[in-house]
């Protein structure tokens, strides 16, 4: 067990901090699962280190240039009332959100 912990790249606090960045809070049970998952995940992607990637470009689809671009014109969405209808707490054309600035 001790050895396993020693080999792990990320511990409970690291994973909690990463989860907080993603706006997720984890129960203790979820945290244990997430720590195991993320460390296994990093072990899996560590495989890339076997490759010499220095002169390899990041991937993009060759056809990107083939994609015809539409004109960049603003368009009015005709049914904005339907967008707002999903929220009881909307006013005018806005969604009401909780306080953003701290006092």
């Amino acid at each position, binding site marked *: 067990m001790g050895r396993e912990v020693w080999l792990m790249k*990320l511990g409970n606090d690291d*994973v909690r901090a*990463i*989860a*907080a*960045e*993603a*706006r*997720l*809070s*984890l129960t203790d049970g*979820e945290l244990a*699962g*997430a720590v195991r*998952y*993320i460390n*296994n*995940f*990093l072990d*899996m*992607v560590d*495989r*890339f280190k076997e*490759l010499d*990637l220095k002169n*390899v*470009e*990041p*991937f993009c*689809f060759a*056809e990107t240039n*083939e*994609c*015809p*671009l*539409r004109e960049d014109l603003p368009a009015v*969405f005709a*049914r904005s009332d*339907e*967008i707002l*209808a*999903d*929220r009881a*707490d909307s006013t005018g054309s806005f*969604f009401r*959100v*909780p*306080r*953003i600035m*701290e006092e």
Partner: protein
Amino acid sequence: MQLYELGVREIAEGIREKKFSALEVFDECLHRTLACEGKMSALITTTADAGRAHARRVDEQIAKGGALGLLAGVPVILKDNICTHGIRTTAGSRILGRWAPPYSATVWELLSSAGAVLLGKSNMDEFAMGNTCGTSAFGPTANPWDVSRVPGGSSGGSAASVAAGYVPFALGSDTGGSIRQPASYCGIYGLKPTYGLVSRYGLIAYGSSLDQIGPFARSVEDMDLLMHVLARHDPKDSTSVDKSEIDFTRREKSRQPEKPLKGKRVALVKEFRDFTLDPPIADAMKRLIRIFEETGADIVEVSLPTVARYAVACYYAIAASEAHTNLARFDGVRYGYTVTTASDLKDMFEEVRSKGFGAEVKSRIIAGTCLTEPVRSEEYYVAATRVRTLIAEEFRKAFENVDCILQPVTPSLPAKIGEADEDAMKGYESDLYTLPVNMAGLPGFSFCTGYSQSGLPVGLQLVGPRWSDKNLLDMGFELEKILGTPKIAQRGN
């Protein structure tokens, strides 16, 4: 023969020729659906009333002698990550609540313009993350060939409903195998089109550089017809490419009808040779090789060492990174599940996302956040995008000399429901045959070869170079003549 047993083309023709009405077809499909849903749970939402009203309108049009779309009156089911205006769309997640999109996906616009009638929205792994349908917030779907087994995923509800005869066709989405694997588990056809061929506007995104919408059906002719309707350039999807020169309705006549596949170069992947397969899948590979040889195709070998060793890791690194970005929009402000008790915005985000997302989705979001953090991004995410270049390049070279690759879809037949691997990474390894196809943006055609002794369907896939979708369907058409047309599963009713 019952109406629910008919295919897309037969239904469209029968309605046009007034052999039966669109409403009769819809009602019989609905009846079949309700007879199976108790055991199968393939649908999240059934659109019975709206569908019946739509079918009636088709019948009125026919009575008036008006122009009809190609799919007039044909019932369809859409995976529940495809937005449908005014109809609840959940992506298999609790976080979207009862959200009804204010707009429709382009694929649904195309199908409904052609006259297709919506019967329901199908169950799926939450946000398409999974290969069993088991991560859905709405519970699992059963395989109609054996209801104790999974239908595959993530488009499991769409595949199961076509296999059981709810509808003659359905749409799914495929980010790493989510059309091809459930098609294989359910014994039908499923096409993951070339990336860029079918619009993704209105598809709830998971991994944007990988996601692709495609059809399920029970005959290759039906697949042709569906691709004819779906493969359209869409200005609303910046990755959509205009390939209007591909004619899915025209089948090239073979010069030698007795050897229609003569001269085709069909490749096997050298590195996959020693991987273990369930015996029925290994037998199907041997049988297909023999069939190709007998019909005049050349069986050759290609080597994909980077794919075999790195594709799984590369895929999950990219998919998780893109998922973490795409799923940032689910914050409770504009749609779906929300809370009213949060003291500030950050608390609201955290509470909504923590309660709204399931475990697998949270794990992948955390993994994606981790891999794209500035301190690790170069080491993992950027490295993965470079490995992806090597993978795409390896496929490109392989296809210089071959028409397609024949390979399994999965190494095993469908597992029992609830028997998923404890170790998620082992589950991920089973996706090796499907996910490299998405990494390189290739088309993959999953087809049913027959049935195992225990009565489960056994599928394989053909993978081709980019934009060879039509060629794969042409080969599938010849194979269907030899292997037989997929049957309708009768164990879900």
